[in-house]
């Protein structure tokens, strides 16, 4: 009976350790991913500074939560920090594409005006 109790205790301890280990891995992975995104974001100088500052403070908070052993909270916070960095990058990209779209629209309008001008010249040339 003692042997059975001992075996069960060992099994439970292993399960607990495995669970704890996988949570730690997930937190580390989230933080690592967030760190990679932060490095990527640092290459872009046009990012929303408020958003990146908020993201950085959340990553710091995630690390602190991890230190406190609050792995789930740490993972969620790391995810949020990373999401804010991704949002900052997406906003910057959106602005850049908006500008490109605007310039292209203007160029297209100019082309259309040129077309109308040449058409009017052709009409005059062929009317004579």
């Amino acid at each position, binding site marked *: 009976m003692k042997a059975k109790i001992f075996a069960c205790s060992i099994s439970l301890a292993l399960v607990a350790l495995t669970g704890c280990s996988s949570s730690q891995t997930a937190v580390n992975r989230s933080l690592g991913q967030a760190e990679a995104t932060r490095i990527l974001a640092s290459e872009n100088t046009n990012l929303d500074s408020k958003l990146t500052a908020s993201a950085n403070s959340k990553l710091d908070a995630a690390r602190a939560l991890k230190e406190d052993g609050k792995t*789930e*909270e740490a993972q*969620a*916070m790391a*995810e*949020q920090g990373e*999401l*804010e960095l*991704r*949002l900052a990058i*997406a*906003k910057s*990209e*959106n602005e850049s*594409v*908006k500008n*490109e*779209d605007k310039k*292209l*629209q203007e*160029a*297209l309008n100019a*082309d*259309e005006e*040129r*077309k109308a001008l*040449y*058409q009017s*010249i*052709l009409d005059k*040339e*062929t009317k*004579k």
Partner: protein
Amino acid sequence: MKTKNILTLSALVASMSFAADAPSISPVDHCKLALDNAKTTLPANAISARSTLAEGYGALNQLEMVYADDDDSDLIPTLVENCSKYAELAKLQGETQALRNHIAENWDKRAATNRTIEAIQEQIGAARSGKVSDLEAEKQAIKAQKDKLEASKNEAMDKLNALQSQMIQVTKDARGIILSMSDILFDVGRATLKTDLMTSLAKIAGILSVYQQFDVSIEGNTDNTGSEEFNMTLSQQRAENVMNFLVEQGIAETRLTAKGLGMTMPIADNSTKEGRQKNRRVDLVITDRTQKVK
């Protein structure tokens, strides 16, 4: 689906307005609503946005599990916020993709517009070169016509010069070619044409029938002997007789005019015998109609 979401959102807004009385929406529903709403705005080719949305639905699953386990968990606000951020990010990425699609469409439009412009420019070039060559051909034709007329005129002049004799003087001035016929060719004091004159006039008619561009003004002149009235009548009659003879020879009347000038247009001194003889004459002023038109 869109209508359903709008209705759900309306219900959400309504429920928030009466939050004190109505039960509040669960964090799970809030998350799902945000993600579903973002999904409706995505263009078909928004791959990164859809990938983000998939991550968001993953976060929703996690939220559901945590909420089911403990609806008062400290983790819930962070998970809800993450869910909202996934929705916001997906929406933004979708908007960017829509802009990229618009850019691609506009590049296609630009390419098409520029192709059209090139085609129009070619048509303008063709129209202009066509006009230039037409104009050049017209110039060449005019020049050829002018050269032909000039050659014809010179040829006629040569033939008329051949008529030069003691009784017919051929000269050229600003009015044209002038054939001056002495009054020896007429009976004295009369308008009847002598045989020699008729022979010369027949030759002239032959030349005029070939060179159709020439018109003839027949001018009768006298010296200052006799009355003015007589001289005027005689000169008119002689001019008319010459004209009638040319008409008989087949020259169109429209090409001919006859007028008597009497003693008004002397070409020599009437005080001498020689001068008076020169003044008694009939002039055929031959003019080039084509030159008159110009």
